């Protein structure tokens, strides 16, 4: 019996979530009194295995096939490895690539699947804590099965530290190339544009609460009065009101300004991932339960259409 965690890498770099999975996996393995194994598939697996080799790992399995992530390769390789190891729990990252292989892998292995875990515990059965309604509600799901595949939310567990000495074993997954039905042809960076919000000291950031494109004027006015740069959360960019290079969050930019003023932004986990490193966070939102207040240093619970012009007035 083992816990098996699957590392993630992209374009030559191990991604941070891999080391978080090691921590989550080690804790779970301790709860079961078992070993933690880690799998790394494709790319420069030996270098990744070196980078991954932290305290608490009992073995690292490498599958040296292909360069970049391909879900067909991952599903085949991990299906074969799981057949070999019979893990009690298989942990994958709840990332865009995790979402591209974990459900198919669970289905093929006939493991129950629970996604986007924010906490894991063992109480006879595996108990997975996850959130609903944009972090407003927390739920637990009990998994009554000898096996499970769980995807783990990034940035919920600390990265594993220390230097480990787990043996690195090449696993021959016998990947069938004829069963690979999708081909990655390249990557594209989202256009940089005129402004780099990652360089700004002060960001005035606007979210869904602004309602209409015409209402953005009060945001521009405030930014001008403060000498700040305007950024946005996803819905504003999806609506085409601001260009993609202004988007803060998991799929946009990660920003670390001195001051981040979140206006009409609820604070979905994908957004928070992009701005929680700001020195000072200010939130203006009429919903007192908005998750943005959990990470804010200063807050105003009120109608942004009243507060923002009043704030601008103070600096004019």
């Amino acid at each position, binding site marked *: 019996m083992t816990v098996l965690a699957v590392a993630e890498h992209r*374009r030559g770099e191990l991604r941070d979530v891999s080391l978080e999975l090691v921590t989550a996996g080690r804790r779970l393995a301790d709860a079961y009194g078992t070993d933690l194994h880690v799998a790394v598939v494709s790319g420069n697996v030996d270098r990744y295995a070196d980078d991954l080799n932290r305290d608490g790992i009992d073995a690292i399995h490498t599958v040296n096939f292909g360069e970049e992530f391909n879900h067909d390769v991952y599903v085949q390789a991990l299906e074969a490895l799981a057949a070999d190891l019979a893990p009690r729990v298989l942990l994958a990252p709840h990332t*865009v690539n995790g*979402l*591209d*292989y974990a*459900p*198919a892998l*669970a*289905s093929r292995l006939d493991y*129950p*699947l629970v996604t*986007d875990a924010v906490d894991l515990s063992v109480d006879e059965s595996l108990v997975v804590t996850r*959130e*609903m*309604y*944009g*972090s*407003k*509600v*927390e*739920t637990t*799901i*009990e*998994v*009554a099965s000898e096996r499970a595949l769980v*995807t783990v939310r990034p940035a919920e567990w600390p990265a594993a530290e220390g230097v480990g000495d787990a043996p690195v074993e090449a696993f021959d997954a016998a990947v069938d190339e004829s069963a690979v*039905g*999708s*081909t*990655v*042809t*390249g*990557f*594209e*960076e*989202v256009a940089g544009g005129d402004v780099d919000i990652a360089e700004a000291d*002060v960001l005035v950031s606007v979210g869904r609460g602004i309602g209409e494109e015409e209402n953005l004027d009060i945001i521009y006015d405030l930014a001008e009065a403060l000498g700040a740069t305007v950024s946005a959360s*996803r819905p504003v*960019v*999806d609506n*085409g009101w601001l260009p993609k290079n202004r988007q803060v969050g998991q*799929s*946009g*930019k990660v920003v670390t300004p001195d001051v981040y003023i979140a206006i009409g932004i609820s604070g979905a986990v994908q957004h928070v991932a992009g701005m929680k490193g700001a020195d000072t966070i*200010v*939130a203006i939102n009429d*919903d*007192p*339960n908005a998750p943005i207040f959990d990470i*804010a*240093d*200063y*807050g*105003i619970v*009120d*109608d942004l259409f009243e*507060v923002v012009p*009043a704030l601008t007035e*103070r*600096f004019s």
Partner: protein
Amino acid sequence: MKVLVPVTDAATVDDEFEVDGLHVDERYLTHDINEWDEYAVEEAVQLAEAGEDVEVVTATVGPERVEETIRQALAKGADRAVRVWDDAIAEQTLFDARTKATLLEAVAREEDPDLVLTGVQSGDAGFAATGVTLAERLGFQWAAVVNNLDLDAGEGVARVHRELEGGVEELTEVTLPAVLTIQTGINDPRYASLRGIRQAQNKPLDVKGLADLGLDESTLDSPLTWTSTSEPESQSEARIFEGDAETTAGELADVLAEMGVGQ
């Protein structure tokens, strides 16, 4: 060519709410078409408008309430709809990806689509796994988190962009038949026209139960049990300014000025 679009509605909760057992009390919930599915519907309708002889069929697992969402999809241009529900399904408390994919798989096997477009995730439960689970069960190819689609029906290939983290997109070719999970922002969803809304009333909306789909009640058995629901304790350590907008804005301005902002 046939495009199957699994759509659902998603609930948002009011600012203040109460949890009753496993569920948020219905009084505090507002149901509307799931945001991601709205983009999937639009993408399908645009394919139908661009191509000849493209049929768009929606598939939904849900109670009668969800017909409001289905009629929205029909009003925007979907041709017909299938809603899956019966008393046995209604007894389920947890609609995880496997449960939904089991029911949608049965619909897909009857419809035999070339392409399945569905939202990346639902806005309420957010499992984000139904589409890829469905693909695997159907033996279809797939791509998750698609924010650009160029369909070459002649060659049987979908050229897609997958939106990765950090402003990077992966360019991928997927052979049909395939399931694509659609990310918000891929298009600009239309509003239903009055004419569309009228026409939607006459479009076929079939309701099917387990028996109609050739499924047994045991197919709903799941090792997963939803055991608790709670409102997390606020972790907020924020200094919240109290008073009317003038007062709070003034206090915030003082704090910002002290930090050298706007000086």
